[in-house]
């Protein structure tokens, strides 16, 4: 695990010039993930914000070999790259030791790309899959995904006169990935650089399919003030909406325990997508969400104890 000073001296592999928003969580995640990997690396990217904003021809922010093919298939695309690499290794035509990283948003990972993700995980390709989870389809203009929180306003789960935002709670994708019995599953946030860097280092050192789900604030879709990205991501952890944990060979471990568990409303009040939850008429809904967050947190704690 490098110190921040050491990390700062490393050569950047995801560089400036991209057109992601100021305060975009995905840009920070990509930069930190790429800084954490020292080995030769090939990157795949699903269609999404990170993809469209980082590779506008003839420019590219990627100082590593990079491929994007489509939206729902980055895991399959990198499966092919990794299979080619293995084939060349087997034939003695390649000596270097490389790692493979796939990036996808929650759309490309939780939803349209779930099949491809599951297939690649089951086959056990050696790759780290990083989901930059901004909890909606931000690239197409803030539509709900299965990662969108309950009651969040999006353009396809709008706050209306009879329906107060998204009806469902978010899908628990890390659990689905754990059920694949892969060597490593973790959650992280950009706001704790050491947590993310440590987890990426661990994941790429393992031989197999590894998965990190990184909550990635979206200033345009959540929306929030751009300077609050890091703080909002930390607050998601401190409210236990987005606990930080890792699952190594099926064993759960909490990697950060909030000193004091904050009420979810603390997180909600910094984001306009939840503004309606602060109104007295939605008090019951707020309580319902708090209850579900508590239930999920308790379940996780039990898994970590066991």
């Amino acid at each position, binding site marked *: 695990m490098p110190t921040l000073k050491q990390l700062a001296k490393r050569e950047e592999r995801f560089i400036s010039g991209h057109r992601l928003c100021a305060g975009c969580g995905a840009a920070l995640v990509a930069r930190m993930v790429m800084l954490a990997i020292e080995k030769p690396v090939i990157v795949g990217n699903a269609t999404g914000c990170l993809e469209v904003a980082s590779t506008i021809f003839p420019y590219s922010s990627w100082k590593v*070999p990079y491929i994007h093919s489509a939206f729902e298939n980055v895991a399959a695309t990198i499966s*092919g790259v990794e299979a*080619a690499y293995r084939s060349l290794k087997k*034939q003695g035509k390649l000596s270097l030791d490389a790692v493979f990283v796939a990036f996808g948003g929650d759309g490309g990972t939780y939803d349209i790309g779930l099949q*491809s993700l599951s297939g690649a995980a089951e086959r056990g390709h050696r790759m780290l899959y990083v989901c930059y989870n901004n909890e909606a389809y931000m690239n197409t203009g803030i539509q709900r995904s299965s990662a969108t929180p309950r009651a969040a306003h999006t353009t396809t789960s709008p706050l209306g006169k009879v329906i107060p935002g998204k009806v469902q709670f978010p899908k628990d994708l890390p659990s689905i990935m754990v059920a694949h019995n892969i060597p490593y599953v973790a959650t992280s946030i950009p706001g704790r650089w050491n947590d993310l860097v440590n987890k990426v280092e661990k994941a790429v050192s393992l031989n197999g399919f590894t998965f990190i789900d990184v909550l990635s604030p979206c200033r345009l879709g959540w929306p929030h003030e751009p300077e609050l990205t890091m703080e909002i991501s930390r607050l998601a952890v401190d409210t236990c909406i987005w606990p930080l944990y890792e699952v190594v060979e099926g064993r759960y471990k909490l990697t950060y325990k909030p000193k004091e568990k904050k009420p979810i409303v603390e997180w909600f009040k910094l984001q306009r997508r939840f503004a309606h939850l602060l109104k007295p008429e939605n008090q019951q809904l707020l309580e319902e969400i708090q209850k579900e967050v508590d239930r999920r947190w308790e379940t996780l704690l039990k898994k970590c104890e066991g």
Partner: protein
Amino acid sequence: MKVARTGNEAFAEAMRQINPDVVAAYPITPATEIVQIFSQFVADGLVKTEFVAVESEHSAMSACIGASAAGIRAMTGTSSQGLALMWEMLYIAAGLRLPIVMAVVNRALSSPINIHCDHSDTMGARDSGWIQLFSENVQEAYDNLIQAVRIAEHPDVKLPVMATTDGFILSHCLETLDILSDEDAQDFIGISPERPNLIKSLNEGSPITLGALDLQDYYFEHKRQAAEGMFNAKKVIPEIGKEFGKRFGREYGFFEEYQFVDAEVVILVMGSTAGTAKDIVDEMRKEGKKVGLLKLRVYRPFPAEELAKALKGKKAVGVMDRADGMSAFSGPLYPDICAALYDIDQGRPVIQNYIYGLGGRDIRKEDIRYIFEEIIKTAKTGKKDYTLKYIGVRE
């Protein structure tokens, strides 16, 4: 060496000899055997291939794209719904200029679900930037797949190629064919010409970005370049077909002419029906009728000028389509042929369209004889009284 093989076995055999670095495939009737046989080759250590048993055809093509982009030879095989599921990725494979080779077994598209032959699946991919080679028999299927590697990888082409057989009719029927020795096949295919790729760029520390966002200022140029690859394929395909002929005695071009030179009326057809049609041509020739056949092997790129040259002076052409264009006009092959012949000033044949054999409906000898008789009638008057007829359907 003469052997007896089904179409699927012959495809698998060709793949063993091609010995690709990566095969990513998903089973689908009637193409299943191709991957089944090939995965046995992998399990028995007969090939160097890394076999990726993906969870869908979409992922099969995606993995082939990743593998090919990494700089190696990648292959797959599919049919029907599988090809339809790949549709999005077909365009991406061609757009990224990846020389992927695919064995396609032609099968009807749902709905209604049907597992038997027609060309609807392949027709759905005709504008995707893939080169399309049709086969009359198992021999041609085998030869086409071997040549496909050379065509796809040619530096002037760099486009993916699909070689097709007709579902069940060829895929499951045992035929005698001449297969090359492994040495001859591998020598003919040769080493893949180097192209920019991910592994090379990793090795050399000079990163490349593939699949960048191309907006109004670049997309058109890149598409134009891919189109140029398709134009170049028109030169490369007959060259490779000729070289193949010189070495192995079976020469290939864009199409085959059968009893053609003095024919007054011609049936134009693709795939296995050509074999049946040849029998009818023989029979009708004995009756003194000047009938002939043009079997189109290369559908994409479309050899328009060559077809016009060949068909100029013929009185009538019956275009047989094993797919319906659902255009309330014709099958998909017919408008292409019409367009190809439109610029003939003098001696332009009258062209009629016959849609046949959907969902594996047998095309009988008498059906083909009927089409010949129809176009003979048309040839006499020089005028057609219809454009399209469905053959062999109850209505």
